C-alpha cells in the first residue's frame, strides 16, 4: 500500500508584523514621539507668547539693562531688557563651575581610585542624596546657614585680594552676592559633575592603567597620563551639564542673591542677576505686557540651557563611544 504524501503548502514568509504588533508599535512610537516633541512644544509656546515683547524690544531685549513697566499717566513706555540678568546668570554659573568642578572631579577621583572599599559605598550614597535634595532646601540652608559664614569668607577675600578688580568693594554689603549664589550653586552641581566624571573614569581601559603602574608610575602620574587624557571629554561634558543646571536654577538663587538691574564685575558685592529668579520675582505682579516679556526671558533661558545641554551631551556621548 502506498502512502499518499500530502505536502502542506509552504507557509508564506513575511516580515509584515501582525496586527497586534502594529498596534503595539504605534502606541509605543506615539509615546516616544510625545516625549521627543515636548521640547519643541515648550519652545513654541514660549516664543508664541513672548514674541511680541521680543519683537518690539528687538536686540535691546538681550542687551538692555532696564525692566520698567509702562506708566501711562507719565507717558512712560515699558522697556524690558534682560541684559543685566543674563550677565548675572552667566557670572554665577561660571563662579559655580570654578568652585564646584574641582571638588566634584576630586570626589570622582576619590571614588574611582583612592577610596577604600568600606567608604566607597556610603560615599556614593552621599553624592546621590545630595542630588536628591530639592533646591528650596539648598535655598533655605544657603540663606540661614551658609550665608553668615560665606559673608565672613567674602570679607577675608576682599581684605587680602581687594586689589583684584573682581574682589573690589564699592559698598560694604557682602550678603546675597554672586559669590554666595555661586557657592550654593557649586554645591548643587557637585553631584551631577561627580556622577558623569565617575562614569567616564570607570571606562578607562584597565590595561592602560596597569601599564602605567608597571612602568613605575605613582597613582597621580597614572591619573595624569592615563585617566585624564582618556576622560577629558567626559569631565568637560559633565562640567557643562552642571553649568546648564546652574544657569536654570531658580529658587535657591532667589533666596541668596540680590537682584540688581546693573552689570557689575565685583562678585562679592550684594548685587547680581539671574534670569530664572527674575521670572519668579516679577511673575506675581506682572500685567499682560510684562508677562509677555517674562515669556521672552523664559525662552532665552530655555535656549541658553538647551544649547549648553546639547553641547554637553554631544561631548559626553562622543567620549563614551570611543
Amino acid at each position, binding site marked *: 500500500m502506498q502512502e499518499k504524501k500530502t505536502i502542506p503548502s509552504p507557509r508564506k514568509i513575511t516580515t509584515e508584523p501582525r496586527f*497586534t504588533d502594529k498596534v503595539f508599535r504605534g502606541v509605543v512610537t506615539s509615546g516616544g514621539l510625545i516625549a521627543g516633541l*515636548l521640547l519643541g512644544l*515648550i519652545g513654541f509656546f514660549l516664543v508664541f*507668547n513672548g514674541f511680541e515683547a521680543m519683537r518690539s524690544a528687538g536686540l535691546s531685549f538681550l542687551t538692555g539693562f532696564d525692566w520698567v513697566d509702562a506708566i501711562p499717566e507719565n507717558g512712560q513706555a515699558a522697556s524690558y531688557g534682560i541684559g543685566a540678568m543674563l550677565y548675572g546668570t552667566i557670572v554665577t554659573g561660571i563662579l559655580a563651575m570654578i568652585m564646584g568642578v574641582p571638588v566634584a572631579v576630586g570626589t570622582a*577621583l576619590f571614588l574611582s581610585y583612592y577610596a577604600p572599599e568600606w567608604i566607597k559605598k556610603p*560615599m556614593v550614597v552621599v553624592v546621590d542624596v545630595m542630588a536628591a535634595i*530639592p*533646591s528650596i532646601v539648598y535655598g533655605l540652608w544657603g540663606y540661614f546657614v551658609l550665608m553668615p559664614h560665606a559673608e565672613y569668607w567674602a570679607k577675608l577675600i576682599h581684605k587680602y585680594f581687594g586689589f583684584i578688580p573682581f574682589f573690589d568693594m564699592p559698598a560694604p554689603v557682602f550678603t546675597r552676592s554672586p559669590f554666595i549664589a555661586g557657592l550654593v550653586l557649586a554645591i548643587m552641581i557637585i553631584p551631577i559633575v561627580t556622577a558623569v566624571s565617575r562614569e567616564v573614569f570607570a571606562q578607562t581601559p584597565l590595561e592602560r592603567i596597569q601599564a602605567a603602574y608597571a612602568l613605575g608610575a605613582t597613582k597621580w602620574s597614572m591619573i595624569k597620563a592615563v585617566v585624564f587624557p582618556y576622560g577629558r571629554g567626559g569631565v568637560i561634558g559633565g562640567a557643562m551639564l552642571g553649568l546648564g543646571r546652574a544657569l536654570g536654577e531658580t529658587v535657591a538663587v532667589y533666596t541668596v542673591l540680590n537682584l540688581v538691574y546693573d552689570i557689575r564685575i565685583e562678585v562679592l558685592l550684594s548685587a547680581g542677576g539671574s534670569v530664572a529668579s527674575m521670572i519668579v520675582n516679577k511673575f506675581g505682579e506682572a500685567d499682560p505686557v510684562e508677562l509677555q516679556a517674562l515669556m521672552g526671558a523664559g525662552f532665552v*533661558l530655555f535656549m541658553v540651557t538647551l544649547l549648553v545641554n546639547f553641547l554637553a551631551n554631544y561631548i559626553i556621548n562622543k567620549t563614551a563611544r570611543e
Partner: protein
Amino acid sequence: MSQTTLNVKPEHPWKLTPKDLVTDLLGALFTLLSTLAIVGFSPLKGKLGFALTLIVMAIVTATVMSWIRLDRKAAVNSSTTVLVYIAASFVIMALASVLYEIIRLGAPGFSLSIFTKDMSETASDMPLTEGGLLHAVIGTAYIVTFATLIATPIGILTALYIVEVKGRFAGTVRFFVQAMSGVPSIVAGLFIFAFWMIQLGNSYSGIAGGFALTVLMIPTVARTAEEVLKLIPQDLREAGLALGATQWRTVAMVVIPAARSGLITAVILGIARVVGETAPLLLTIGGADAINLNPTAGNMSAFPYYVWKNLLIGSENAISRAWLGVFVLMILVLIFFALARYFGAAKGSRK
C-alpha cells in the same frame, strides 16, 4: 645536575612596615600640633583659620615626608592624594551640614498634630502649635500623583520606543529626552502657564501643577527605564520570539516582568526628582492656606509652596514653619530615595 630549590618567602612589599606606620603617625601628629601652634600664636583665628591651616599643613607635611623618603614624583603624588581626600571630605561636610541643620531647626516643630490642621485659621506668625500643613500634604499628594499618572506611561513608552521598537527616530528621541532633563524647572512652569492658562484659559489648579511636574518627570523616568531595559539580556527576547510570540507578547510577558523592579525604581526616582520642585508650582498652583479637595479647580498648596511662602513672610515663627516644612519634605524625599535604592538593589538591575 643537582637542583637547588629556592625557598621564597611570600613578601608584601606594598604593606606598611612598622617604621613607616610610626613615621606616618608622627606626621599626622605633627600636622595637628603645628596647626594648633600656628592658630594659637598667629593672627589666624577661629574655625576657618584652623581648617585652612590644617589643610595647608597636611599638604606640606605629606609632601615633605614623601620627598625625604623617596623623590619629587612621590611628593607630588602625596600632595594630590591629600587634595583628593580634602575634596571628598568637603562633599561629606556640605551634606552633613545640610542634614544636621534641617534636623536642628526643623525637628522641634514636628508633631503629629501638624498633619491634622491647615493654615486657614492660623497666621504664619502664630506659634507652631497652631495650624499645620495638612493642606500642603493633600496638595502635594494630588499634584505628584497626577504627574506620576501621566509621566509613567509616557516615560516607559519612550524607553520602550528607544530600546525595543528602535524606530526611525529612536536616536533623535533619545537625544531630545537627554536634553530635556536639563530644562530649568522654571521654564517648565512657564510652558504650562503659557499653554494651560493663557492658551486654554484655565486658572490656577492642582492639575496645572501636575502638568508642570510631568514635564520634569518624563526625562527622569524615560532615561532610567531605558537603562533598565538595556540590561535585560537579549537572549530573553530571542527566546520569546523563537517560541512564536509576537513582539508585543514578548515585551509584555518577558521583558517588562524581567525589568519590573527597575521600572519601579525609575518611577520612584522620578517622584523623588519632582516632589520638592518649587519654581514650577509657584507659577501654576496659585497657593492656598486652606484645604482644597478639588484638584481640577481652585488654588492649591504643596510642601515646597508652604516653605516658600513662610520663607518670604520672614518672621521668626514663619521661618520655623519653613524649616518644619523642609524637614517633612526631606523625610519624604529620603523615603522615596530609600525605596528607589531598595527596588534598584532587589534584582541588581542597577549598575
